[in-house]
């Protein structure tokens, strides 16, 4: 418990450093673009792949479970959309990104720490916390919601494809369901989650990288801790946000 509080304290202090005034704005703008490529664009492939299959599986399971004449077929499209928008895309995809992006961030920053590259930045008079973590946070806050939107669209397409190809749900019924009882607020809720989770992933994995001590082995450990702890934080904040926004 004591250990946990120490981590929280150090994490908050680090975040205060991260949001200090950057040295030179033009450099940061370039860094943000680079990070958008590394953390965002490079993840589009895996997000699309996972989303299409998960959407398909969701639709098929819905179809199996709602296989009674009492429930109209379009409900399957509706239920698939709701699961995708509310939970699957913002939460599950964020967990996947915690694995992919989080490990990259912790190991990159951790390696820079143990090879004294962070000391080198500091000696030059640069604030390494801002220089290394701030552009990553901005890039993720900007691009993760886009990834989640892509995921929502692709997953619904996956569901529609699975329904039509298996013949379980006729195309027209599914699409009618996708459009039924649509609430803009659900998408807002989903975007809020993806923004909060993006911040958690980058800041927590950045924290573990930044305070790595030792050598290659510790970089590996930092990377694992970054992924595990940002995943735990996502799960906890998922409950908190759901309570705040939907209750």
């Amino acid at each position, binding site marked *: 418990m004591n250990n946990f509080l120490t981590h929280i304290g150090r994490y908050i202090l680090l975040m205060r450093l991260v949001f200090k005034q950057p*040295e*030179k704005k033009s*450099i940061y703008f370039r860094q943000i673009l680079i990070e958008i490529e590394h953390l965002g664009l490079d993840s589009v492939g895996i997000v699309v792949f996972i989303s299409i299959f998960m959407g398909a599986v969701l639709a098929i399971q819905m179809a199996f479970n709602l296989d009674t004449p009492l429930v109209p077929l379009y409900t399957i499209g509706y239920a698939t959309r709701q699961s995708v928008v509310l939970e699957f895309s913002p939460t599950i995809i964020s967990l996947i990104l915690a694995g992919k992006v989080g490990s990259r961030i912790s190991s990159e920053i951790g*390696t*820079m720490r143990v*090879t*004294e*590259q962070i*000391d*080198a930045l*500091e*000696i*030059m*008079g*640069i604030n390494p916390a801002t220089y290394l973590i701030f552009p990553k946070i901005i890039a993720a806050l900007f691009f993760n919601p886009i990834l989640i939107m892509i995921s929502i669209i692709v997953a619904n397409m996956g569901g529609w494809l699975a329904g039509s190809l298996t013949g379980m749900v006729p195309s027209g019924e599914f699409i009618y369901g996708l459009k039924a009882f649509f609430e803009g607020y659900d998408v807002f809720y989903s975007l809020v989650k993806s923004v909060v989770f993006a911040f958690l992933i980058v800041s927590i994995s950045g924290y573990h990288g930044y305070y790595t001590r030792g050598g290659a082995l510790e970089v590996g450990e930092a990377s694992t801790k970054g992924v595990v702890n940002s995943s735990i934080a996502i799960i906890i904040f998922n409950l908190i946000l759901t309570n705040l926004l939907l209750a």
Partner: protein
Amino acid sequence: MIEAIEISKSFGDNKVLDNVSVKFEAGRCNLVIGQSGSGKTVLMKCLVGLFEIDEGRGIFGEKVLSRMSFDEMKLVRQEIGMLFQGGALFDSMNVEQNVMFPLSMFTEQSIGERLERANFCLSRVNLENVNKLLPSELSGGMKKRVAIARAIAMNPRYLFCDEPNSGLDPHTANVIDNLIKEITEEYGITTVINTHDMNSVIEIGDRVSFIHEGKLWWQGDRDTILMSDNKELNNFVFATKLTRKIKGL
């Protein structure tokens, strides 16, 4: 001139530096020698502010390091160049980007001016036609030289080198040592060099401070070091059978 005044530093119960006072003169190679683990790196990192000093203070010219605000510190740091043990080149940047990096962060120079300066610094360390290589494509000696070029890019008044020739073959080590000496004398830099290599001491040791178990044990230069009768110093200097035999120990 750089001065360490009664500096003490502990990590938990481990007292690494105990009341160390030492002066480093401008335009000279000031060596800090001692066994591995004696506290050389910690002393250097205390002086440049990478570690917080428990007691005592470090002085650069007239400025006291520990009393500086974050922004004052930033200004002093732009006058400091540091060469880290492993080179600490930025992995994601090629050679020329590494050398230009401090210039891009702290000057308003155009890309042409920065490139010109980077090429000058690289030629100063005898590196040509490697501008586009990544650090992972360089040999140990080349990495050190790029790191020196980056350290002098901003015309520093103070240069810190942590084991500049560790892990290099004797010839390359010698080249690096003499390069640092030349640059130091040419630009009148106050240079502090950590080493445990006696070859460096004899080659470039204008001023030599011996640290043992976190204390300053002996001070002198490359001529007096061989004549001393300090027991701990002699154990360090004449560490091998060959040298002990010659000294008659």
